[in-house]
């Protein structure tokens, strides 16, 4: 059993949880994820590692309540436990001190998984410019944390309630327009956001790394449920990724596969609500 050591609702429907898992915390690296199961009848869901604390032996998860399992997880409190917590999974981000200027883009809740990557890039001695995107000011997360490890932070809100009005690509364009020399972009967020970033950087020839979020079951490479088309190759995001060269990813297929269980997901959510497991 894995105990919930800390829980906070960051903004409506977005939660921060620290889970006690000392061995995972000791091994975790930026860019990796875990798979958890809330209870004996639960499904296995992947969540990216948003932070890890070796001393406390905890892994930080940031999640948004979207379906049955995240609803169930959000209903648990500090001191409660979940049954299964496996990781760290996936390839760590490739980070060294000679990357130059890196733009780290987090869309919505994607800011959380970008954070440890941006921090590691910063600690390695690179110049880190972070772009944080959100629909509106109220649902922006991790601003202080991102400011602490970035040379510059640009915030973009769809409604203009904070920072630049527009999408993360609007902010990226401003950087380009002011003549910033960008060596790499790392973008994490909804499929459509990562696709837009890649469409923007492709003509500029800027290397762009994305972290993909397909449906997963085991997370260890045994089922191929998370397969994605990268260039000419079929890749399993859980073992080959989750990070890939964004210019080679078939985003349309990724987003289409993300809808494969939409009908069942609605049913599961209703079920969890009905039996009172949710919030």
């Amino acid at each position, binding site marked *: 059993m894995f105990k919930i050591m800390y829980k906070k609702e960051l903004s409506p429907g977005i939660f921060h949880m620290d889970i006690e898992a000392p*061995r*995972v915390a000791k*091994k975790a690296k930026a860019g990796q994820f875990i798979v958890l*199961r809330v209870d004996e*009848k*639960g*499904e*296995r869901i992947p969540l990216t590692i948003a932070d890890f604390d070796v001393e406390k032996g905890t892994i930080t998860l940031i999640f948004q309540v979207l379906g*049955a*399992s995240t609803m*169930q997880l959000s209903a648990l409190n500090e001191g409660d436990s979940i*049954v*299964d*917590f*496996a*990781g*760290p*999974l996936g390839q760590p981000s490739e980070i060294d001190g000679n990357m130059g200027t890196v733009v780290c883009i987090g869309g919505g809740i994607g800011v959380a998984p970008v954070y440890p990557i941006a921090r590691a890039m910063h600690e390695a001695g690179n110049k880190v410019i972070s772009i944080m995107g959100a629909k509106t000011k109220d649902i922006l997360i991790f601003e202080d944390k991102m400011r602490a490890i970035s040379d510059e932070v640009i915030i973009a809100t769809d409604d203009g309630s904070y920072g630049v009005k527009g999408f993360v690509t609007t902010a990226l364009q401003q950087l380009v327009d002011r003549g910033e020399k960008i060596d790499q972009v790392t973008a994490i967020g909804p499929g459509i956001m990562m696709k837009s970033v890649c469409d923007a950087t492709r003509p500029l020839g800027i290397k762009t790394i994305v972290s993909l979020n397909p449906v997963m*079951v*085991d997370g*260890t*490479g*045994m*089922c*191929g*449920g998370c*397969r*994605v*088309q990268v260039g000419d190759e*079929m890749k399993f995001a859980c*073992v080959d990724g989750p990070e890939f060269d964004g210019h080679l990813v*078939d985003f349309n*297929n990724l987003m*289409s*596969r993300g*809808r*494969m*269980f939409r*009908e*069942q*997901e609605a*049913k*599961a959510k*209703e*079920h*969890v609500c009905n039996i009172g497991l949710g919030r």
Partner: protein
Amino acid sequence: MALVMEKHKMPEQDPKVRARNFQEVALGYDEDTAVAEAERCLNCKVPKCRQGCPVQVNIPAFIGKIKERDFDAAIDIIKESNSLPAVCGRVCPQENQCEKHCIMGIKGEPVGIGRLERFVADYQLAKNEEIKPIQFAEDAQKVAVIGAGPSGLSCAGDLAKMGYKVTIFEALHVAGGVLSYGIPEFRLPKDKIVRREVENLQKLGVTIEVNAIAGRLFTVDELMGEMGFDAVYVGTGAGLPHFMHIPGENLNGVYSSNEFLTRCNLMKAYDFPNHLTPIAIGKNVAVVGGGNVAMDAARTSLRLGAENVYIVYRRSEAELPARAEEVHHAKEEGIQFKLLNNPVEILGDENGWVKGLKCIKMELGEPDASGRRRPVAIEGSEFELDVDTVIMAIGNGPNPIVASTTPGMETNKRGNIIADEETCATTKEGVFAGGDIVTGAATVILAMGAGKKAAAAIDAYLKSKK
């Protein structure tokens, strides 16, 4: 007394009924039938049946005890050699192993050794006896087993009985490997059989850590170093699904058999939404492949409510790699066989869902290196099969996650770990490997045989070091 030439029938669920439920198909012998079947054994002086058993169960001895109605003694004899008898009695291909060598099989049917093993194993499980834990010596040596599938469980069981402290590290949240995620409930009940045989092993003194992914959470070097293990057995299996690499394989509605069966067996998606893992299945399902896994996926599809389920296989019926019994069961339940057909493309609709499978007809040419006649496409014979779900069951390869993080342990060009056939020793000292990770996908009992051999070799290795 006249010899009974035929095996006593095992009662089964009616095909029409069972095709729509997940309960076990074969119902098992009762006591009188088991004794009557045991009476068919001639108690040969040189029991050939034992040669066919990869873990060398003392078959005539346990059958002799069944004749005497001493079922407790019978199971004790089996357990000396086999840690998972209720599993083996159900899923072993006995026709190619113990029963293949049975003298009774020359003129009639062989003795139902598997059915008898199953009977006594179930008899003991039903009694729910307390299991006496092994008393380990204070300074007992420690062995790590990676993977809680049949070979790891078998190796661990044997080592524990020899007095070693064994910890099994399992990546998934449940032990059993293919017994838990692969073989369906209707052939091998999970809670009633697999879980309980694993629990009995734990009660004996084997420690199992789930959610422990070797190669990520720790490496083999760390196991042998700071984690303090004296030897390691790698039994990680063949769990990496193959795809055909034809157009359309990433459409919605296309599964690997591993994903499909894992959702259903391990995650109990058939009980959705009580269990939260979903499974989406259409009316018409094509399962590509002809092995046992293909039969399992096809029969599972029926039970999930599919109306038409096709096995699409590029060779003919004679070459089907699945057990004859599985093919027979599949046919009884209404699975339709599309033989000598090979998929060339999966067709999708405007929403990205499967709407058909384009196949080409095949004919058999000259025998290939494996001795099987090679299928050759008949030009211009393409046709479309009207399906909305496609399950790829064309085999599995080795998962590279442990080998790639273990310097000094060599693999062959297919990615299988190189290990000595007799001792299971790898090219790295103190590290042994066996089962599907070495041989490629094979059977449960062969993996268990490898685990047993490795246990003996690990024992010899550790004694030589002491």
